[in-house]
């Protein structure tokens, strides 16, 4: 088997232009115009995409909404024609691009399986042979013989997925369809993925669950604004995507392995020689360690900014989808994050010490101000929450018109992934002045990869079961 035989997908110089028409009339005019005049605006969904996928690989495609993921999958599934470039796919392709595509809601699941199988090029007898397997995999009971308009979206997806698997494709393409399945069915699908991989079949799937990429894929691929940012190790790609998400705009044409990713462990460039923060390895930096010159400089600029209006949206870590509530007696008008002398980093190493500064403007007298912070993950789960009342810290009473700045220093022993910071200002623990849910968004990275919401200290070894020759490690569980 030569190299070409091992390729399942080859995408060469693929670009896709969408024509945006002001109206349907313009669309028809352009399509039928004998002189081929144009009546549209252009939008490039993909630009010059090149990559290959080897047979048997599972590729996880990551990208923000509108980055061109679905367009790319549709081109590979030959639902769309590329404007330029070519795509070669070896073998039969089954694609789950949208829930409901290819299924007539008026027909039963059983009838739709026959229709879908025929579209995929199977004969009626081939389909009927597989029907019982499909029915068993979909596992939706008597709904299998009910019109699909009566199905829940989960049932729909089960039938679609079962059909796609049992038409026995060489290449399976899945566009976020799995996300409607319950956890049990998802697990079943991923187990099925493994069987697919073992059979040397190729899977392409789009996901927003970044942790799924290192868990299930051999290869990750990151798209941003219609361009291929990078393709490679799933863990690296998950991190890169995290960066794309937090930074928002990544410069196009990023060369592979360029230094665009912030270097987390470098010493502070402006650190005074012998300065504790600059010199010491950060893992042992004390939470009360002195503040560097650079740090002070960043902080001074922050403190000197005298605008008494909301400055948070100017922060690079600001999350425009934050939610805000409170009685308005006090207002969080600005914040600052400093980590290893970097101001407002969007990507931070797990375990780093980060200073969070909050500038609060008081509109009323508040006798006993309380400030709290909460860390939530992208599902909104609170992983850590604390406030000055619980910490038994008493803050100085504030008068209307006062501006105060408070600092939290946190060692971020959270898991790899996206994190959101929620600061809150209150008069009492129940009387909230200003709470800004998911105000800041940053991404934590670490090596080697691990999953979950927290970083635990971990050790591992194999325990010898040979009790006779106990010459081995006397403390097998010590890290």
């Amino acid at each position, binding site marked *: 088997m030569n190299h070409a035989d091992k390729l399942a997908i080859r995408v060469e110089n693929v670009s896709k232009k969408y024509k945006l028409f002001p109206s*349907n009339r313009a*669309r028809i005019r352009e399509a039928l115009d004998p002189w081929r005049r144009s009546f549209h605006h252009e939008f490039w969904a993909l630009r010059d995409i090149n990559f290959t996928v080897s047979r048997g690989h599972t590729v996880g495609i990551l990208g923000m909404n509108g980055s061109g993921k679905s367009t790319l999958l549709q081109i590979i599934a030959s*639902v769309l024609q590329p404007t330029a470039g070519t795509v070669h796919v070896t073998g039969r*392709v089954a*694609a789950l691009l949208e829930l409901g595509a290819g299924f007539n809601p008026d027909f039963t699941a059983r009838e739709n399986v026959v229709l879908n199988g025929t*579209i995929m090029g199977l004969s009626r007898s081939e389909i009927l042979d597989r029907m019982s397997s499909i029915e068993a995999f979909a596992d939706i009971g008597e709904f299998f013989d009910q019109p699909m308009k009566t199905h829940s979206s989960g049932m729909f997806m089960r039938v679609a997925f079962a059909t796609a698997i049992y038409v026995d494709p060489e290449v399976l393409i899945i566009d976020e369809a799995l996300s409607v399945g319950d956890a049990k069915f998802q697990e079943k699908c991923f187990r099925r993925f493994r069987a697919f991989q073992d059979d040397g079949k190729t899977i392409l799937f789009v996901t927003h669950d970044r942790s799924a990429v290192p868990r299930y894929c051999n290869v990750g691929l990151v798209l941003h604004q219609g361009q291929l940012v990078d393709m490679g190790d799933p863990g690296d790609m998950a991190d890169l995507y995290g960066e794309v998400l937090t930074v928002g705009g990544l410069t196009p044409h990023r060369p592979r392995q360029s230094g665009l990713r912030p270097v987390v462990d470098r010493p502070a460039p402006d650190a005074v020689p012998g300065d504790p923060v600059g010199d010491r390895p950060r893992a042992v930096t004390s939470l009360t360690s002195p503040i560097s010159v650079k740090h002070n400089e960043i902080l001074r600029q922050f403190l000197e900014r005298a605008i008494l209006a909301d400055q948070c949206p100017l922060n690079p870590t600001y999350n425009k989808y934050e939610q805000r509530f409170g009685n308005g007696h006090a207002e969080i008008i600005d914040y600052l994050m400093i980590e290893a002398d970097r101001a407002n980093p969007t990507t931070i190493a797990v375990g780093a010490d980060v200073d969070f500064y909050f500038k609060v403007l008081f509109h009323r007298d508040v006798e006993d101000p309380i400030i709290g912070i909460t860390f939530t993950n992208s599902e909104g789960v609170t992983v850590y929450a604390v406030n000055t009342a619980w910490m038994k810290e008493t803050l100085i009473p504030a008068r209307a018109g006062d501006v105060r700045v408070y600092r939290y220093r946190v060692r971020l022993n959270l898991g790899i992934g996206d994190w959101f910071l929620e600061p809150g200002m209150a008069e009492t623990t129940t009387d909230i002045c200003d709470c800004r849910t998911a105000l800041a968004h940053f991404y934590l990275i670490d090596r080697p990869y691990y999953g979950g919401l927290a970083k635990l200290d971990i050790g591992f070894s194999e325990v010898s079961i040979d009790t006779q020759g106990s010459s081995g490690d006397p403390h097998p569980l010590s890290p």
Partner: protein
Amino acid sequence: MTNELRRDPLFLRHTVNLLRSFWSHRRLIWQLALHDLRGRYAATLVGSLWAVVNPLILILVFWFVSAHGLRITFQKGPPYFLIVFCGLVPWMTFSEALNGGAGAVLNHRYLVKKIAFPLEILPIVSAISALIVHGFLLAVLFVILLVSGIPLTFHWLQMPYFLLGMLVLATGFSWILSSLNVFSRDVSHALSAVLTIWFWMTPILWPAQNLSGTALTIVRLNPVFYVVEGYRNALLYQQPLSAMWPLDVYFWVVSVTFFFFGALIFKRLKPHFADVL
């Protein structure tokens, strides 16, 4: 258009590709045509029987009204009922194919978006499902003809020829109607008005012999006239194919022109379907 003409004069390559696509997707076309029929009568007790019973009832009504109410008579031999029957069977199939064709893409929207599907077969699907009904109507017609003592002759063998002609004509129209209808539903509304006019302009309930001169010429320019008369000539009047010469040439020029033209319009508009639906 100029570019395409240069690359593919007479759209021959495009047409060959289309025919090849029809052939390679024949199983799918058949499957969809059956689905089409069953879907239309999904929530009924007698199901597809309606597809045949309705036209038969309509034929009876038309015959009764025109024979006994309007007292229309044909000079030539066979009973008036049979003349109406022979004319209505192809017309109904034709109008059914056009009505179905106009909705072909719209009604299969679940096949248009996000799925690799050969859309160009959809108008054929509606024509085929109309043909299935046509088959049943023909069977009824044959039985009635034989019972009425109309001789079974070799002239009957012309039937498939006229059927094919109607299929080509209807497919051409369907491509145009189905693709334009996606962009503006006016098409299906306009179609029902056009079909009504067309029906009465075609000598189905009334004898063409009543006309002469310019009026007759205009009626003969109607391509459906060729099919309707063809059916009658073959089944009732025992006329050879040459009876309508040179209308054959005219009919095929019109049908094939619409076929190519329709295929071209469909091909041009096809990439936009998914964006509009």
